[in-house]
């Protein structure tokens, strides 16, 4: 799961402007059968997020929003006939498919190469602006995205829901999955630490003590892994690519080092080998829980 930079780039290359759908993922898995699915998904997600970050601004100009909104409205109203035909055609072809609604918003998102969930948010915001005098608050929007039933317009609600369930990189469901994955790995790590009899303080305990930066675990007695001293362990249930690793270094890992000394980062879905270059400096990367942990012998102490 530890990829060389070249291997990683080969995968990333295949992900250029691929929409974040089930189908894309399936193809990716076929293309790289030797890589684990979780790793591929993580890379995919990160690459797509990078792509969105790059193009985000372009979709957020008022002109762009206006044009999306108009197109969506047109689709749903004026072009109904066309949609009907397409739907019938689909029905005819499949014989079985009964789409509740044509994937107008989803198609639009794919067409302009934007994340469906984000497109849904964009349109929803615009819609609410039109129907309510005041600009909708972020929490209202988020709440509606989490539960589209709250959206006053039934058709739009369906469209939004469709976008959200079909987006595998953004949206409340994906966020929840990511969060759950993160949590699960923390739990996993905690179990492993307990199993190894390594006593630790977890994030909550640290926060309660007033620590300003809190890694997932601080070992109460440091250990050594591959000759490196480990004071803290951070679990990352994602693939460590350059971009995310540098962000983490800046926001977290160095901050931990600054306070607690050297430590270990576990990228459960692997990382780019070349990034593991701060070992001497005090940040060790692993893709799994280390097997050879050297503990302080009590006879020495």
């Amino acid at each position, binding site marked *: 799961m530890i990829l060389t930079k070249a291997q990683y780039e080969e995968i990333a290359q295949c992900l250029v402007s691929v929409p974040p759908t*089930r*189908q894309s993922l399936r193809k990716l898995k076929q293309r790289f059968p030797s890589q684990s699915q979780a790793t591929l998904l993580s890379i995919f997600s990160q690459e797509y997020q990078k792509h969105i970050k790059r193009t985000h601004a372009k979709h957020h100009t008022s002109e762009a929003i206006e044009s999306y909104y108009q197109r969506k409205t047109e689709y749903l109203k004026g072009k109904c006939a066309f949609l009907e035909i397409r739907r019938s055609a689909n029905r005819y*072809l*499949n*014989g*079985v*498919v*009964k*789409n*509740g609604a044509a*994937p107008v918003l*989803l198609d639009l998102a794919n067409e302009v190469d934007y994340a469906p969930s984000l497109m849904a948010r964009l349109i929803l915001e615009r819609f609410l602006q039109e129907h309510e005098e005041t600009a909708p608050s972020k929490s209202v929007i988020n709440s509606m995205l*989490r*539960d*589209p*039933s709250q*959206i006053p317009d*039934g058709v739009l*609600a*369906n469209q939004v*829901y*469709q976008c959200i*369930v*079909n987006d595998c990189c953004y949206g*409340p*469901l994906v966020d*929840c*999955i*990511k*969060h*759950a*994955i993160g*949590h*699960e790995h923390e*739990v*996993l790590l905690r*179990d492993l630490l307990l199993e190894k009899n390594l006593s630790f303080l977890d994030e909550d305990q640290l926060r309660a*003590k*007033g*620590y*300003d*930066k809190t890694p997932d675990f601080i070992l109460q007695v*440091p250990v*050594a892994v591959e*000759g490196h*001293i480990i004071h803290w362990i951070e679990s990352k249930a994602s693939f460590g690519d350059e971009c995310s690793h540098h962000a983490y270094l*800046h926001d977290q890992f*160095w*901050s931990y*080092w*600054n*306070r*607690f*000394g050297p430590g270990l980062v576990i990228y459960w879905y692997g990382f780019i080998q070349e990034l593991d270059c701060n070992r001497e*400096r005090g940040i060790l990367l692993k893709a799994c829980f280390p097997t050879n942990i*050297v503990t*302080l012998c009590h006879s*020495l*102490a």
Partner: protein
Amino acid sequence: MAAVLESLLREEVSVAAVVRWIAHSTRGSEDNPGEAAALSSLRPLRKEFVPFLLNFLREQSSRVLPQGPPTPAKAPGASAALPGRPGGPSRGSRGARSQLFPPTEAASTAAEAPLARRGGRRRGPGPARERGGRGLEEGVSGENLPGAGGRRLRGSGSPSRPSLTLSDPPNLSNLEEFPPVGSVPPGPAGRTKPSRRINPTPVSEERSLSKPKTCFTSPPISCVPSSQPSALDTSPWGLGLPPGCRSLQEEREMLRKERSKQLQQSPTPTCPTPELGSPLPSRAGSLTDEPADPARVSSRQRLELVALVYSSCIAENLVPNLFLELFFVFQLLTARRMVTAKDSDPELSPGVLDSLESPLFQSIHDCVFFAVQVLECHFQVLSNLDKGTLKLLAENERLLCFSPALQGRLRAAYEGSVAKVSLAMPPSAQAVSFQPETDNRANFSSDRAFHTFKKQRDVFYEVLREWEDHHEEPGWDFEKGLGSRIRAMMGQLSAACSHSHFVRLFQKQLLQMCQSPGGAGGTVLGEAPDVLSMLGADKLGRLWRLQERLMAPQSSGGPCPPPTFPGCQGFFRDFILSASSFQFNQHLMDSLSLKIRELNGLALPQHEPSDEDGESDVDWQGERRQFAVVLLSLRLLAKFLGFVAFLPYRGPEPPPTGELQDSILALRSQVPPVLDVRTLLQRGLQARRAVLTVPWLVEFLSFADHVVPLLDYYRDIFILLLRLHRSLVLSQESEGKMCFLNKLLLLAVLGWLFQIPTVPEDLFFLEEGPSDAFEVDTVAPEHGLDAAPVVDQQLLYTCCPYIGELRKLLALWVSGSSGRSGGFMRKITPTTTTGLGAQPSQTSQGLQARLAQAFFHNQPPSLRRTVEFVAERIGSNCVKHIKATLVADLVRQAESLLQEQLVTQGEEGGDPAQLLEILCSQLCPHGAQALALGREFCQRKSPGAVQALLPEETPAAVLSSAENIAVGLATEKACAWLSANITALIRREVKAAVSRTLRAQGPEPAARGERRGCSRACEHHAPLPSHLISEIKDVLSLAVGPRDPDEGVSPEHLEQLLGQLGQTLRCRQFLCPPAEQHLAKCSVELASLLVADQIPILGPPAQYRLERGQARRLLHMLLSLWKEDFQGPVPLQLLLSPRNVGLLADTRPREWDLLLFLLRELVEKGLMGRMEIEACLGSLHQAQWPGDFAEELATLSNLFLAEPPLPEPQLRACELVQPNRGTVLAQS
């Protein structure tokens, strides 16, 4: 002066008498009357003798050492006490230590008049002078060059020529020029006042502004060819000069090099690491060694005599810098060849060999002979050098040749030596750890300050790491690279309290990184011993040894380097400069001063001479390490304190003179010192702790500006230091006095201080100093720290790396003429230091305290430390114990009281502040119990700890006393804290509890709900929640489309999925609330899709719909999950949201039976109330539906509402008929 030397050479006076004469002005009772008479007549010149002698020797040797290894940069020169000389010419130089010896008080003596007159005359304008002036101005920089530049140039500029004397009418009343009858007929040279030395001023930018004439005290009168100002030997002793081997061009080249070197050395942010100590490569290659032969020594006797006088001066500490003289002697020992004097002094009369008119060193043989003579007198010092130097000395073939006896003693000393020294720097930075006690939110005035500091800490280390990465790259500039970032960061430190936090971080990091070169593990004072050193000390040690081998030995820039900030220290210096924040500097000074006081006052153990067995030796190793750690920390802190404190006064401009100086002095004398170092020094001397206090004081003073030594306050300090210096006679060793190596350390650091350019030149010889005057009336303990062997070679060399120059000199000799100063092998022995225990607190007072002190007096120091340690820890634990028991109980009470309040006052609960007041008024009185509890705790815990830590053979009485004292101290400490803080502590904890309770009262009641964990037998093999959400999401996305024709799910898969969901919900190991919420929501969505028959089923086209029975089975599973397994709320009302019900609108024919079934089951299982469903159904009517759909919906609604709540069996029956009704519905 010369007269003294001459009468000595003529054996009119004994060496001993001369030395006595120099050292003790009046006492001459032991001297024979003749000697006394001869010398007493010369009394006024006494103080000038030593500078004269040193200059004389330097000058004499200049032919031998023109191209040698690095020369002592600040070579002594005879003074030219010219009144009205405007300031010390060389004072302006910062980095270079090139000033000569100062004018002495000669000006005020009888000799003054003619001298001054002559001087004045000499200073008169003349073409030669002008020429010389220019030449000097350009050439002075050579002084500091490795190689003989300085010496040679000095020669060129010190040309007091006989011709000059001739032009002067002889002053017969001048005893110096006309010694008493019986002495040698005064030759022309004899009559001359020995050369007034140029003060060669190293070139620096600021020098260009100063007047060249201030460089001169004695212009060359005898005309020197202007093209070759240095070619002629103009020394009165002849032959003092190398031939004009260098053209002006060459000198300029040297000057340029020197300039750039000084730029690098000056402690400004613009300087990268200095590159020091390497001889000029252009000269290194051409050396051929001349063999030295004892048989060919000329005028042995004279050399012996001079050597003896010289040695005696060194031994009596009459020379400012012991190691500088040793360096000089080593240079003589390793001189490669004599420069042939092309143009020997024409006026030298070859017949007078036993006077000073013939050169002292006529050959290499003479030099080596002289050097060996001197070294023989200083065997004791030599034998205390490090093992490496001893080896090189013992292996020196010249030494063997000239004095087999000395060589033998040195060899023996080498073999017996254990003084291996390593100066490797420890590896890179280790961060200061976060300590909740000082660093958490409670220590900050506001959230903002807390978070700002959080960011600053990270920026600080980011900057530090960047510096580590780049500072060695050529062209990288600290200010350019990091300056703006540092200032931006400092700009955020608005609150004063944030400054102190940052300063604490800065200071801790400073100590951590820079404190101890060679100390493995980088243990920091006051910090716990680093695990690094425990874990892999051996491995790390090897690593560092390797590292040390790979790195060229660090050159410290000659035997008298300017104060610098080597290694990591450079970062901190540059940081201070770049930050240029006066608040930061002030806080830093405060903090440094405090820490210095604290460390300086630390009760360090004293050696007990009685304890000589092996065990105490082990103890002693620890004590010595502790001393080293404290000393090195102090030196580091003091250095930075000096740097920051004098920073505003240091500038590139030359020191002020005249009136300006007076006004500055008047102003500065009003300013209180940043730290009362005078008092600390006085106390240190009194308490016989000079070995601790003086080394850091020297570091502090080394950064003083030019005005500082002129201030009365600091002048007192210098005078004290000078007296101390004189008193440290190495040969006087006695019980209770200072140890040899302690003395050596003090001599080395003081000698170094006296060479600092800002220290006035005249200071050293000015002070009338019979050393016996320095007997500080001590009420001090019998054995002060000074008497304890706390200094070892490792510490000596760590504090004074320039002593290592001696070894380099010898190694250079061994390495032949290759001239590479880093190329020799070094013996490497890293010494590991580990941490020391906590600092003992000093809280004892009163009679009991005095008794306790007395008790400890006759006990081993480890006992005291143990007791203090136990008391400190138990006291501290006691506070924590009270917090965990009494305070925690009170907090629990507060919580229950609060709950009551909330119940009585309803949801709102009232104003939190008011609530807090009520609670505190009820609870704080209970804090009074803390003292009793604390006392009890200390009584219970301390004795055991003391017992465990003391050796078993400790007598019972001693043990019980120790226990009692520990109990007392611990109680005192704990109770002092508790009585002062317990109320505040209770308040704080209760406040936190109140806000916690109130917060919990607020939103998210679900999160507070009690959660069932998984059963004990659970092995946590259930599928992961994330996996399930992802799977269900896939099903949902398939259902809502779009999808490919071949996509779908199998009924089995759905069933399996729900089964897994059940497992996951039952296991809960990996389940977090948000995941559960989403799972609940997804399961509801799934149910809606099932009800609406929207899930595409895989299989032959005919089976695209889910079988009714299967659907119902799946719904049953879901109902059971909702009922049994979900612990959080399930948004079942979504089942009846317009959107989900609307899914049915798409199905044709519409089938309502599943929905009805679901609703009934929900009611039956108690998952939803009838009323609730009714309300949902009611609101559904308000939505806009196609006409037929609305009708059907109404029918369903009626149907559901029409059914009375039936007992279970009937419901079952109802369920059986369900399909029919469903069909009916569908058909309607």
